[in-house]
């Protein structure tokens, strides 16, 4: 049944540049690079404001993935490495980014990035990444006050979603909308292990369930698992979701339903929240360094 050569888990890479900004007029250009397990993002900020970003799939090497992410920003904007005053690396590959001036944990960066994207009212951030899932509490300045993470198990992560996309041969971007296109919400498949969820999904397909219904059962399992994690430290509004899974409307809607809290919307792709936070930290650090160095 498999379609030769097609890889359904492959989410699309992409870049964006703010057409209203010009880096040549900016005083300070900084960069944040987030090398995650599944995706790598580079964000350029002009004087502490989001300007451009680029997302690529993480390859076998962290330095190459970081370079590829940054290259996309340079190509789209005409910036070059020399124009960038300060670069902060984050994500699981953060210590392995040769051109970064400093490494900062992704938890701090997601806090800062979500504060920028969702506004200072954001108190609870759910970051659903490729290989882990984190709940972060922040104050009005985006500073982390508490966090909890699951990093030992693929259930509730983007990688788990990729596995299901491949199994069902449905492009990963379609999973969310299709999971909502059902007559009745089905019971969830196993929310403890992706491998078990996969066997269950297969059994239900053979049992006559439509693909959409199986996707719904999986999205629900993921939402239930993540909601349990959030429940352990509580959700204080405003609630904001970052990371690749934030783009899966089927998971987001179900999390909102279970928690009884709506997630704040963002006009910008929240998969870049970590890299954005890193670029904002880079700006702060650069200003601090310049001040420290004296006139």
């Amino acid at each position, binding site marked *: 049944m498999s379609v030769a050569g097609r890889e359904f888990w492959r989410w699309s890479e992409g870049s964006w540049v703010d057409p209203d900004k010009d880096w040549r007029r900016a005083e300070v250009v900084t960069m944040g690079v987030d090398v995650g397990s599944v995706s790598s993002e580079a964000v350029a900020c002009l004087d502490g404001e989001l300007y451009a970003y680029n997302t690529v799939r993480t390859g076998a090497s962290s330095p190459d993935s970081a370079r590829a992410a940054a290259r996309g920003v340079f190509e789209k904007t005409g910036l070059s490495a020399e124009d960038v005053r300060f670069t902060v690396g984050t994500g699981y590959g953060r210590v392995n980014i040769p051109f970064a001036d400093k490494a900062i944990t992704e938890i701090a960066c997601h806090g800062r990035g979500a504060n920028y994207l969702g506004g200072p009212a954001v108190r609870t951030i759910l970051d659903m990444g490729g290989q882990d899932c984190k709940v972060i509490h922040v104050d009005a300045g985006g500073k982390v006050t508490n966090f909890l993470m699951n990093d030992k*198990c693929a259930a509730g992560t983007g990688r788990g979603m990729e596995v299901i996309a491949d199994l069902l041969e449905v492009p990963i971007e379609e999973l969310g909308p299709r999971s909502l296109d059902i007559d009745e919400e089905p019971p969830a498949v196993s929310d403890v292990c992706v*491998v078990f969820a996969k066997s269950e999904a297969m059994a239900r397909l053979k049992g006559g369930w439509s693909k959409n219904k199986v996707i719904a059962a999986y999205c629900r399992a993921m939402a239930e698992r993540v909601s349990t994690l959030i429940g352990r430290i509580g959700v204080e509004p405003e609630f904001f979701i970052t990371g690749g899974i934030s783009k899966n409307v089927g998971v987001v809607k179900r999390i909102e339903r279970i928690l009884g809290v709506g997630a704040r919307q963002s006009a910008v792709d929240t998969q870049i929240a970590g890299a954005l936070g890193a670029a904002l930290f880079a700006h702060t650090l650069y200003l601090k360094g310049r001040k420290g160095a004296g006139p």
Partner: protein
Amino acid sequence: MVTAGIDAGNKNIRVVILRDGELVARAAGTGGFEQCAVARQLLDRALAQAGFDRGAVAHVTATGAGRGVVAFADSRLTDVTAAARGGNHLFPGATTIVDVGAEESRAVKTDGRGRVLDSAVNEKCAAGSGGFTESMARALGMSLREFATRSLESTARIPMNAQCTVFAESEVVSLIHQGVDPKDIARAVHDAIASRVASLVRRVKVEGDVVVLGGLAHNAGFVRCLGENLEVDALRVPEHPEYAAALGAALVAAGRVSG
């Protein structure tokens, strides 16, 4: 008296026929969706081998994760009890029995005569189960047999960071890209599974002879890693470890007729 034991596992179904406590036939197949129909066909096939018809069977006992689906069974048995009965029939006196299935693994402490004293089951996570070896062997482009024997040739110890099979799969791919010798990767995978299974075994305590059952017991690479991890020199592996649970069920079936 003829009895049958059916082990409807997450992946495969196995049937054992006993006549007066003596094994006379066995059959195996992949369960798929029609588990009940497959179980029936396998039972018929095993009976035909032994020269019996269905009417000759006094009692059928089903075990395994899919035991509830085997509608024609006269009784049912938990996997833990089936492993204990089958394991102790093959190795009387052994008190620690490990059963590694496709998706689940379990450790059972017995009295040496098939009675369960304690057990621990891995049911929340597929790490530490047999299915993992199949996808890893595929990633390395090896047959399962090759995967096991090549791992035995390895003298290097590469730690696997991932605890989850889904993440381990990516880790194996990156080890391949890094040019790590496939035999060392094969061993690392077996070590990872063995360490998960060993932690289950320690929950019931390692005492006396340790018996390994289930399909993964065929994999000498895994058995070596488990022995090393448990610090047990010789693990006891029967000739047909994958049929032990079905055997246990057939023995219990015999007891239910006479008892």
